[in-house]
Every structure is written in structure tokens, then in C-alpha cells.
């Protein structure tokens, strides 16, 4: 009797499985049958749009493009929290991990509000003499669901604004690696507000918001200059002005949790697909090409750093692989939408090599860039912008330009001007901001607080109790 019931049950289960299987098969067959239809229809639609585009720009929201850029926006959020938070958090000593994670989160929140209130308008609002945006879009006035012709003609303007918000947020968070384990929390808050408005916003405008560098033809696909040169060079100034950590060079300051750093590296890499491929502002071939370049450079950077360190120091290290991947990602960022996979591999090779030696030689320069923002983002950003002037190809992105290796030497000159302008502006601006913050609230925690650690002294908490 029991056996019969079991058999009956089995039969029912099999019956259900068959129904499910048939349903799936039907859906697949149906999809296959339907698929050619829309493709043809789309082709026709695209052709007609192109014809109309000659007369006047057509702004029509595309759901695929919108979905991809919204998703990319969330991916870039994951780069800051928990990606960068864990990447940096693992690299500091155990008494400072909460303070370090806190920096990433609070910078994100602070910049988000600033961006919505005034930042976006100043960076991307109607151009004022090539230098800054106007205040016309303050409080997102006029930034709605209608697409903007220059900022993604197929996605709502708000989506572009949000995508850019995430870039604005991660950039000052990157700088915090240079001043890890010693910056006062109040100083960090004030610095973030001033730096975002005084440095990030104008540079974003110059390059992406219709400013003078963009008009000159400077190419920065996803932020080699806007994000990595600004943060890397500002980090250098911060490290010099704040001074070394107490015990630097004598105390044991090894990373306290490298698995956290690896977890952060994975999330940064994952999020970087949104950062770079999302910068295509559409779900299209350009996004795929940027995705490919991003991945190729990251993998190459990781292997090259590992190999160089192996030869130079005798052992391949886990932190080396992680650092090389981030170096590859940072370096390929400005070029990702203008280059093919082989150019990306070559850029990755140089990223791993140059950033490794920049980081190793830091010791001889005498400043304490605690988590190597200068060596990785600064050096990677500068090289990436110049490499864009070498490897960019109109065959990959017709909206870009050819670089030196594709017969256009002038592009390299434009890229060099961008490097100099952004670097100089970041260095001078950051130095002034630090002087203001120092005068207002003081930059460093007291020596006693520093030795206690940021977790207890700044936040009254302990990560591991």
C-alpha cells in the first residue's frame, strides 16, 4: 500500500516535471519564432531614426539603455560601499578598520546630497565660459525624465545625473586611502564638501559637461582624469600636508585583513563594469567593447604585477594580484570606450609594471601615502589618459578620435594638456582646501587618539571585541 502511494507520488511528480518541461520548451520555441521579427523591426526603426536625426535630434527613451545605465549606477555604488570600504578597510590596522569603512560610507552620503542640491548643476548645467556649469539646475530643477541631447539621448536625464553622482561620490572616497589612520573625522567631512565643489565639479565640467577640455577634443571615456588623476594627485598633496603616521617606517603596519581587501577588489572589479561599460550610456556594442577592454586590462594588470613582484622580491603575493587588478582597471578607464582588446592588454601590461614600481619607490620619496592612492590611481590615471592618446581608434568608437598609433599625433598633445591642467588644478586646489580645513578644525587626530586608533577615538566603537 505504502509502495503504491510512493509510486503514485512519483508519477504525479513526473507529470508535473513534464508539464514544466513542455512549458519551458514552448517558451523557448516561441521566443525563437518571435525573435527575428523585432530585430528586423528594430533595424527599420534605427534607419528611420537616423534619417530623422539629420533634421533634428530625436530624444526617445530606450528601455534597454535606461535599464543598463540604472544597473550600472548601482554597480558603481557597490564600488564605493562595500567595495572600496573593504579594500581599504583590510589594508589598515585592526584598530582603524571602522574609521576607514566609515569614510567611504559618509563620503558617499555627503556627496550624494551635495550633488542633488548644487553639484550636478555646477558640473553639467549650461556652460559658463567653458569653466563651470550654471546654477540653472540647482535642486535638479529641470532635470527630469526627459532625455538630454548631450547626456544620453535615450535615457532619462535623471538617470544620467544619478550615474554621475556615483562617480562624484567615489572620487573623494579614493583620496581617503592616502590619509588613512590619522585624519580627524570632522576634517574629513569639511574636506569632502570643499573638495567636491572646488575640484571635482569644475574638472567634471571641463571634460564632460561641455567645458574647455571637452571642446578641445580631450578624450576621457570613464574618468581617468576626472576621477583618477584628481583623486591620485590630491592624495599626494594630502599625504604630504598631513604628514606621516606615527611610527611610520618603524612600527609594524601590515594590512590586518587581506581577505577583506580581496573581497573589496572583487567588488571593485565587478562594479567597474558599470563604471566603464555604463559610460557608453546605452546597452550597445560600445558598452560591450568597453566591458571587454576593462576586463582584459584588469586581468593583465594583475598578472603583470604578480610577475614583476615575483621576479623582484622572490614571491608572488595576494596583495600584489589585487593591486595589479585595480591598477589595470584605473589605467584603462579613460581609454576603455575607444580601444580594442589588444590595446587594452598592452595598457594592462604597463599599468601593472608602472604602478608596481611607483608603489615600491614611494618609500624613497618620503611621504606616507598609506594605501597607495598616488601610486595606483595617480600614476594609472596619468598613464591611462596619455595611453588614450596613443591607442584610441575611431574604428572602435566613431564618436572618439584616432590616437598616435592610428595616425593622429595631435590627440596625444591634447591628452597631455588635459593631464597637466587637471594635475596642476588638483594639486593647487587641494593644498588650499587643506589649509582652510586645518585652520578651521585641524586635520589630524591627536597623537594619543592616533595610537588608540580611529575606531575607538573617533567613533567609540571596536570592530573586533
Amino acid at each position, binding site marked *: 500500500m505504502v509502495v503504491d502511494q510512493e509510486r503514485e507520488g512519483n508519477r504525479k511528480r513526473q507529470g508535473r516535471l513534464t508539464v514544466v518541461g513542455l512549458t519551458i520548451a514552448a517558451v523557448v520555441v516561441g521566443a525563437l519564432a518571435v525573435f527575428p521579427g523585432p530585430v528586423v523591426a528594430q533595424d527599420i526603426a534605427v534607419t528611420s531614426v537616423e534619417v530623422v536625426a539629420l533634421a533634428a535630434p530625436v530624444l526617445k527613451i530606450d528601455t534597454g539603455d535606461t535599464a543598463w545605465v540604472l544597473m550600472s549606477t548601482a554597480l558603481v555604488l557597490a564600488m564605493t560601499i562595500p567595495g572600496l570600504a573593504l579594500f581599504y578597510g583590510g589594508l589598515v590596522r585592526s584598530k582603524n578598520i571602522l574609521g576607514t569603512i566609515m569614510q567611504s560610507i559618509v563620503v558617499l552620503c555627503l556627496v550624494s546630497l551635495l550633488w542633488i542640491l548644487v553639484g550636478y548643476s555646477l558640473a553639467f548645467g549650461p556652460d559658463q565660459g567653458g569653466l563651470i556649469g550654471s546654477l540653472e539646475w540647482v535642486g535638479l530643477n529641470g532635470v527630469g525624465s526627459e532625455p538630454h541631447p548631450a547626456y544620453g539621448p535615450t535615457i532619462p536625464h535623471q538617470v544620467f545625473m544619478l550615474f554621475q553622482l556615483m562617480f562624484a561620490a567615489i572620487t573623494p572616497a579614493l583620496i581617503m586611502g592616502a590619509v588613512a589612520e590619522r585624519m580627524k573625522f570632522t576634517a574629513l567631512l569639511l574636506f569632502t564638501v570643499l573638495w567636491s565643489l572646488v575640484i571635482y565639479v569644475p574638472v567634471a565640467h571641463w571634460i564632460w559637461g561641455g567645458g574647455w577640455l571637452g571642446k578641445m577634443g580631450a578624450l576621457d571615456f570613464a574618468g581617468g582624469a576626472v576621477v583618477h588623476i584628481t583623486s591620485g594627485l590630491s592624495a599626494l598633496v594630502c599625504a604630504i600636508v598631513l604628514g606621516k603616521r606615527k611610527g611610520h617606517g618603524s612600527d*609594524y*603596519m*601590515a*594590512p590586518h585583513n587581506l581577505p577583506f581587501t580581496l573581497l573589496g577588489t572583487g567588488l571593485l572589479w565587478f562594479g567597474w563594469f558599470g563604471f566603464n561599460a555604463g559610460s557608453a550610456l546605452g546597452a550597445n556594442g560600445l558598452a560591450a567593447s568597453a566591458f571587454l577592454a576593462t576586463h582584459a586590462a584588469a586581468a593583465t594588470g594583475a598578472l603583470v604585477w604578480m610577475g614583476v*613582484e615575483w621576479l623582484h622580491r622572490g614571491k608572488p*603575493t595576494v*596583495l*600584489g594580484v589585487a*593591486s595589479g587588478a585595480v591598477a589595470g582597471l584605473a589605467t584603462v578607464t579613460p581609454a576603455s570606450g575607444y580601444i580594442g582588446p589588444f590595446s587594452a592588454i598592452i595598457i594592462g601590461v604597463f599599468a601593472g609594471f608602472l604602478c608596481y614600481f611607483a608603489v615600491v619607490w614611494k618609500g624613497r620619496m618620503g611621504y606616507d601615502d598609506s594605501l597607495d592612492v598616488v601610486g595606483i590611481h595617480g600614476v594609472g590615471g596619468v598613464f591611462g589618459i596619455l595611453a588614450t592618446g596613443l591607442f584610441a581608434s575611431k574604428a572602435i568608437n566613431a564618436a572618439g578620435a584616432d590616437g598616435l598609433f592610428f595616425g593622429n599625433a595631435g590627440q596625444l598633445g591634447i591628452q597631455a594638456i588635459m593631464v597637466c591642467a587637471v594635475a596642476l588644478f588638483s594639486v593647487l586646489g587641494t593644498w588650499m582646501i587643506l589649509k582652510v580645513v586645518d585652520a578651521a578644525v585641524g586635520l589630524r587626530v591627536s597623537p594619543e587618539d592616533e595610537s588608540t586608533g580611529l575606531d575607538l577615538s573617533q567613533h567609540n566603537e571596536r570592530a573586533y571585541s
Partner: protein
Amino acid sequence: MKMIEAIIKPFKLDEVKDALLEMGVQGMTVTEVKGFGRQKGHKETYRGQEYTIEFVPKVKIEVAVTDAQMPRVIETITRAAKTGSIGDGKIFVRELVAAVRIRTGETGETAL
């Protein structure tokens, strides 16, 4: 009475403990310690930044024994803790002037 202090490699602790129990030692005190002898420390490298770790983790075993037990205890620890490579540790012996079993108030060798 003697107090025998043995500094050994941490992974050898179980073997040493079992060997001592087997030969009749009734108790011991174990502490995790750090230090270095001729082995010195090791090197760690993080992004090219090199740290020399001078103090190596070790385990210290303290055993209070009678004068008669001492040679066999030393021999047992030496045998069980030995790997033959540098860093196996050291044994130090001190005079023990008094011993008291708190529960009963017994003193001297009967308290061991």
C-alpha cells in the same frame, strides 16, 4: 625540586604533553609566548614594504618535578619536541624552593 621551563614549537605541544603524561608527570602550565633565538624571525612584504618579524610565536611549558624525575623529564621533552631544524627551542631548569597544594596544605615533593 626543580622547575623545568621548555620553550618549544607550538605544533609540538600535543606530542610533548602526551609524552610527559606517559612518563608520569601529573600536571603542567602552558603559556603562549613570543621570542627569538638563533632562528630569528621571518620577513613579510606588502606592496614592497618589508617587515622583519623578530618575535616568533612559541609555547612555554612549565613543569615542577622532583630531583629524581628531572633527567627523564628533560630527556622526554627533548625527544618529543625535536624536529632537527633550527628553532626547536630550549629547556631551562631552576631550583624550586617550595611547593604547596592549596587544597590540602601539603608541602614539598608530596605537593607536586
